[in-house]
Structure formats: C-alpha cells, structure tokens
C-alpha cells in the first residue's frame, strides 16, 4: 500500500518534471529570423535578435552548461572566475562556522535560561527585541566593527541562526516533564548530571527542531549576505553572473542553492530522528 503510493507519487513527480522541462524548452526555443538586418548589426546583437532566440536559456543550454561546471567544479582563474564547487565550498564554510558558533552559544545559554525562571524573565525583553531584526540589518555594523567582509558574513549567519535554537532550547528545557525531574530528584542526582542525563535527552528533539529551522534560515541568509559583501561564495556568484548577463549560470546557481539547502535540512532531519524517542 505504502510502497505503491510511493511508486505512484514518484511517477507523478517525473511526469511533472518532464512537463515543466518540455514547456520550458518550447517557450525558449529559437524561431525563424524575424527581421533582416545588416550582418554587422546582426553580429553585434547576437542570436537573440538574428534568430528570434529568447534571452532566457532553455533547459538544453542549462544542461550543457551544468555539465561543463560539473566536469570542472574546482578551477580557479582569478577573483571573478572560480569553479562552482569552490564558490559553494566558501558559502558552506561560512554557514558552517557561523552556525557552529551559534550552537555553542545558544544551547548552553538556552539551558541556563530554561532552568532558571529568573534569567528567563530577565532576558526575555532583550530576546523579544533582537529576534525580529533582519540579520542583514546587522551587516553595516558588522562591517564597521569587524572590518572584514568574510567575518562579517559569518557574524550575520551567527546572529540569524541563534534565535530559533535559543528559543527552542529554552522551551524544550523548561517543559521537561515534572515526573522525569522528580525521578532524578528522588535518586539524588546532582544538577550537572541531571542536566545531561534527564534534561538533555528529554529536550533533544525540541532542540534539534530549532537547529533544523536555524540551518534553513542560515542558508537563506548566506546568499543575500554574499551578494552584499562580495568576493566569494554562491551568493556572490549569482550577482556576478547577473552582471555578466549569464542567465544560464544564474539558473544553475539557483538549482544548486536549492539542492544544498535540501541536503543540509536532510542531515538535521536525520539527527532529529536519532534523538526522538517514542512515548
């Protein structure tokens, strides 16, 4: 039953993809030359004008270009011409660094806040104000104080991924079932051991859900941040190719951003499943 459903869903997916590619292909294919013009002018205008080819690349153009990229993902021809693999690696490294720093701050801090009603009340107004600030709004301040564009991008990732993790950790820690805490108390388990053996496992699913939300936001934000700071990264690549008017490369970058985002989400989803316990 389930396997047949999955099979049918897969089939529908493939049909939809094929239909999309077909329509895309038809909408962008070359038509007959529309106007006659002097050969000089035609050379200047390129295929778009001479053969009625759409400025939008078709799936075959994108496929061919993608193949080219995939064959040489790590070439480096100077600052404005690097392989897609290198660009993605820069972005993933920035997201990874900022995200890990956020984990290191958010989870211990979330534990403290969740276990102490006083801290929870005292810090609440700050969190409420800081949380809705768009991470990119921090960028000028970061650039001014840090004076390094790459580290500023990492800082922006840090600041945007900290809130979902912090809030989920606080919530997860504060809502650990009273009876589990009572078990630890009747066994005279100390605070630190209690935090690791009862509160952490009980709150882990909630914490990991927060981490999963955070990695999604971080990956959304890195593209915008790199467009601003420039230099390297997939976001910069998109902007650079836009300036080069290479829509094909922009489309390829969009595709890769989606795939990497999905992979990051899947990794966190797998971790979440590992710590989830049935009740």
């Amino acid at each position, binding site marked *: 039953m389930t396997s047949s459903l999955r099979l049918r869903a897969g089939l529908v997916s493939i049909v939809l993809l094929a239909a999309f590619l077909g329509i895309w292909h038809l909408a962008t294919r070359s038509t007959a030359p529309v106007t006659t013009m002097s050969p000089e002018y035609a050379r200047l205008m390129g295929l778009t004008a001479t053969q009625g080819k759409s400025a939008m690349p078709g799936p075959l153009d994108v496929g061919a270009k993608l193949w080219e990229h995939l064959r040489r993902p790590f070439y480096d021809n100077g600052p404005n011409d690097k392989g897609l693999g290198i660009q993605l690696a820069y972005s993933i490294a920035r997201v990874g660094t900022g995200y890990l720093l956020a984990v290191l701050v958010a989870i211990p801090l979330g534990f403290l806040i969740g276990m102490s009603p006083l801290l929870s009340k005292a810090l609440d107004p700050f969190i409420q104000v800081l949380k809705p600030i768009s991470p990119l709004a921090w960028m000028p301040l970061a650039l001014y104080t840090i004076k390094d564009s790459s580290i500023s991008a990492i800082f922006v990732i840090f600041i945007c991924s900290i809130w979902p993790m912090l809030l989920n950790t606080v919530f997860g820690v504060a809502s650990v*079932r009273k*009876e*589990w805490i*009572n*078990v630890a*108390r*009747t*066994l*005279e*388990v100390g605070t630190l051991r209690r935090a690791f*053996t*009862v509160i952490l*496992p*009980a709150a882990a699913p909630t914490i990991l859900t927060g981490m999963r939300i955070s990695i999604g936001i971080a990956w959304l934000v890195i593209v915008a941040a790199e467009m601003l700071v420039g230099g390297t990264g997939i976001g910069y690549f998109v902007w650079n190719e836009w300036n080069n008017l290479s829509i094909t490369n922009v489309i390829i970058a969009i595709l890769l951003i989606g795939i990497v985002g999905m992979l990051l989400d899947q990794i966190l989803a797998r971790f979440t499943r590992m*710590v989830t*316990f*049935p*009740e």
Partner: protein
Amino acid sequence: MTDKFISIEGIGKRYSGAGGAATTVFENLWLSMARGEFACVIGHSGCGKTTVLNILAGLDAPSEGAVIVDGQAISGTSLDRAVIFQSHALLPWRTVLGNVAYAVSSKWRSWDRAKVRAHAQEFIDLVGLTGSEHKRPSELSGGMKQRVGIARALSITPKMMLMDEPFSALDALTRGTLQDEVRRICLETGQTAFMITHDVDEAIYLADKIFLMTNGPGAVLAEVVENPLPRDRGRIDLHRHPLYYALRNHIVDFLVTRSKTFTTETPGHDPRNVPVVQIGKPGLTVAAASDEPRQTWMPGSSPGLSA
C-alpha cells in the same frame, strides 16, 4: 509501637490561590509508622494524599511542621526513600535495563558498568521481566512498565517505599499479580511502605495499618485502622477471615458517609491523638501517635456510622 521510624509532626500545606486567598489542603497532620510496617492511605480524590506522599518523599516542602525519618528531620529527597510513581515515570529514551541501571549508578557512583548491570539485572529478574531488558518503555504493557518502576525503586535498596496509587491504571489480573509481588518483596526485605490507594481490598490485603482521611479542603486524618488479619494472609482466603467483612464495612462506611461529616460531627477530634480502630478487640486503648492513652473507635460506636 514505641519505635517511630517515620513521624510526621504537625505538617500543613497551603496554596496561595487567586487574589491572595490561601487554600489549606490540610493542616496539623500527625502520623507515625514503625519500621517494617506497611501502611495504606485511603481518602477521596483531592483530599491531599499525594501531597502527603510528596512531602514524605521530600519532593514537596510542607508549609509548616516537619517529617522525622529514623530520628532525623528530612530536608529534600533521599535515596533512602524510593518512590513508585502513579504514572510509572520511566525515562522513555532508556531501555528497561537502562532505567534500572540509572537508579543503581545514582546510588553507587563508583561502581563500574558491569557491576551496575549485574545489580540492575537482579532486580529485573525479581519483578519477572527477564528477557525484556533491552525493550524501551514504549514497547511495554502498562503492567510491565509498572514492574520496571518497582524494580527501579527496589534496586537502590531503600529504607522505605512510597507508592502513589501504583496499580490504579492496571487491569484486575495484573494488579493482583503485582500486589502479590510487592507484598512478598516488602516482607522479604523488611521494607517500610507507604501506599496511597482507592481500592479498599488492596488496602486490606497489603496494609498493616490503614489511614483514613476525610474530604478536603481542610482534610484531617480521621482514624488509624489496624488490620486484624494475620500477617501471612493469602489473597484467596482473605474474605473467609471472620473479621474481614467488619473491617471492609468499616472502611467503606467511612468513605461513603463519615468522610464528609467527620469534621462537623467530631468537634473534639485531636489531630495529635488520632483514634486507633481495632476491629474485633472492643474496649482496648492503644497509644499510637503519642504515649498518652486515648479512646478507641469501634465500628458502630461512632456517631457518623448511624447512616
């Protein structure tokens, strides 16, 4: 009777309700138990039984009064007082063995893994869960979960066991089996046990002493009923004992009528000297909470029983 292993001395519990008005669950409650005794508490829902048990466990602090265990006032929880929770309270991310081993390693912190496991296994075998060590709580039936809770409580070899309606969520058959096991284990290990129950027959089967509490708020400990049945009683011929029905009727009468009217109809009730009822032994005076002589209630002799 002079050996007071546990002595609850004048405890009270208040909750500040909305608008500053405090509700008194109970106040000036006195109660004592001897070492190795099995006591059951019976009373209507909401009278404060769980509150008493939590104070005894150290999970909750009384608003006033003190609890003395083994000559020392308690402050907080202790490994000497194991709790069997009504909702079993197993840690769902640990296996059966893991749950029991957690308790064992909490008590003996220096033990190595093998020793902890062996000790935990011993108590898993004791409650008849051999073969299910590696199952998680979600894979167990209600009765099995409760057995793990019992194994966990026993594994730390406590001085006393506190049980809050441990069997109320179980079917009659499982409940009977677990009652037998708890009774056997408590007798074998000489446990002092304090159990809350709503089941009169459970109390008669298990308890040496039955505490009857009136309805809350402002609940009082009305009577201490001594169980006249022999200590080596069996479940099957329990009801054949000549005093069984007198005892049962006395408790049921209390629950049905006297628990509501007791406070108004017994104005001279002294919470420090709670009457001890000895079914079938008329005219005997016994001192329990204090060493002064006091009156003894007989079934039928109390005004509330006329109904």
